[in-house]
């Protein structure tokens, strides 16, 4: 995550998703038809790869060897999906991805909300310095930290046969720890939570304090229920990023048991790159959860992406 993230938040604080009426809003007749044709062509271009993926996953190998290719399967091979699950443990990969993405989401929400609340609503010494440090960390590109992150995992003391100095074993490599802990929180989540807590009124906490509530209860019972949309937004973005993550799980795992679905796909393609119907069935399985999640929670995704700016 990067510097502009911050700027985006400033820009798009009050952005609503629903379109307002615009200048030739009442575009009718020829103009509206033209605009619709243009947009349909664009939308089709965007959707063709997805449709092609699903159609390919339902064709027979013989049909895939035809050129020019058929559009719709001559025979709808639904059995390809069962065969794919036999060809590679995609069910296991799917479960691993699900476990990791869910855990990342829960940790990020718990820790990010607390940190965001503290930064937004409690004054303590060093708060500004910590906040600035978090912002600086937002700007660090993935590739500027990936090598030492890998080394940290490898030399994690007292794990995987390592001694107290981190020597002698493999540390967290090829363990759930490596998959879950480093990606469990991001500075951008903390930042988003801070912005949401800042936007809430102060009189609530004053009333709560008069009632004798402690700071943790004010956080958990008064303010956090008010930012449910923010929790949904940060949660969905975290889940999506974690589900789609490729490089980190690729680096830190070797055994098939710990493979996530994106890495599983890449491995399957390298080992068996002619079975396109299976590869596309696997790809469909890797894609469908995000597509469904996006369609049902579009509002939160869009809010989150407009706020966070980048993937």
């Amino acid at each position, binding site marked *: 995550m*990067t510097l502009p993230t911050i700027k985006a938040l400033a820009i798009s604080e009050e952005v609503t998703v629903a379109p307002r009426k615009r200048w030739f809003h009442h575009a009718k007749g020829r103009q509206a038809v033209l605009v619709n044709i243009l947009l349909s062509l664009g939308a089709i271009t965007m959707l063709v790869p997805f449709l092609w993926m699903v159609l390919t996953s339902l064709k027979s190998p013989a049909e895939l060897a035809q050129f020019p290719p058929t559009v719709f399967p001559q025979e709808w091979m639904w059995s390809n999906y069962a065969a794919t699950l036999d060809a590679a443990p995609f069910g296991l990969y799917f479960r691993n991805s699900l476990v990791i993405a869910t855990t990342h989401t829960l940790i990020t929400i718990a820790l990010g909300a607390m940190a965001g609340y503290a930064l937004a609503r409690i004054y303590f010494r060093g708060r500004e310095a910590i906040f600035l440090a978090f912002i600086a*960390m937002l700007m*660090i590109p993935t590739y500027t930290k990936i090598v*030492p992150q890998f080394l940290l995992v490898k030399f994690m003391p007292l794990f995987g046969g390592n001694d107290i100095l981190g020597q002698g074993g493999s540390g967290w490599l090829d363990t759930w720890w490596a998959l879950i802990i480093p990606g469990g929180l991001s500075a951008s989540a903390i930042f988003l939570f801070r912005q949401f807590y800042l936007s809430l009124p102060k009189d609530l906490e004053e009333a709560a304090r008069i009632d004798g509530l402690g700071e943790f209860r004010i956080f958990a019972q008064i303010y956090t229920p008010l930012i449910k949309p923010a929790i949904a937004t940060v949660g969905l973005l975290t889940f999506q990023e974690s589900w789609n993550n490729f490089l980190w799980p690729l680096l830190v795992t070797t055994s098939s048991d710990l493979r996530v679905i994106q890495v599983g796909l890449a491995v399957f*393609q390298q080992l068996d790159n002619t079975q396109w119907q299976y590869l596309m069935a696997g790809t469909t399985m890797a894609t469908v959860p995000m597509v469904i999640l996006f369609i049902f929670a579009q509002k939160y995704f*869009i809010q989150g992406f*407009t706020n966070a700016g980048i993937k």
Partner: protein
Amino acid sequence: MTTTDHRPARVAKAASVPGTATAPPRKRKRISMAEKKRRRAGWLMITPSVIHVGLWTLIPVIATFYLSFTDYGIFSAPKWIWFDNYVEMFNDPVFMQSIGNTIWYTFWTVPVSMAVAVVVAVLLNQGLKLQKFYRTAFFLPQVTATVAIAMVWLWIFNPQYGLLNAGLEAIGLPGQAWLVDPQWALPSVILVGAWQGIGIKMLIYIAALQNIDESLYEAASLDGASAVRQFFSITVPMLKPATFFVFIISIIGAFQVFDQIYVLTDGGPANATTMMTYEVYRSAFQEFRMGMASAQSVALFAFLLFVTLISRRVTKEED
């Protein structure tokens, strides 16, 4: 912001101003008692995050700079070699090519997808019946995994059975060996990057368009300005800040392209599509030269910092 801020500091400051220094210490102590508890709570709440970000971001960044001056192969201790990695890196034709490829990839994907995004955003902002469907379609590649998407494109680009060659043949154009041909590999990767990058830019443009004051258009309509004229003299200038923002995040994103290279070309053919990120990956995890990989990632960081600083300066001058 100050309304939601709790700063006893202000009270303390007022008390310490000469002349008001007679503020009773008893009162001060009472404030600090209540404050003490809150501060402790604040620290407790932020400590896990400070530790996590410190361990997994701050320390790695510092380590990257340190390691870039060393020769380090994991199995023996890092050896300090001053600027040798940097010297070697800039004399390495493959790394120089990866810089060229990265810049070329960015040079094409960013403006192309920005141009498409702004047009789509403007068209979508007219309250069409199907606008939600269109928005979903354009945004879908953004939420789905790059690896999965690249896998589909790998199949589309397939020289023998691929959809793209079939489509070209249908309109009488020759097919190509897209990802295998050194001439076509980079343009193919660029096509995928541009295709995938439209969604997020479109979204930011839509948000920016909704912030434009409607009365500007009303006034222009009264003056008889055409829709096209309104687009160029109202919409385009009003979108300037959003354009800067989109431009920067797109460059930063494009410089970090990795997943689709890994799936589509593995950096080939003959390094035609290798990127700076890909060279970092190769040095670190195929050759186990951690020092060299660190130096290469410092170079990548320097490029991104340069772009960010330049753009900030430009934006400031605009203001």
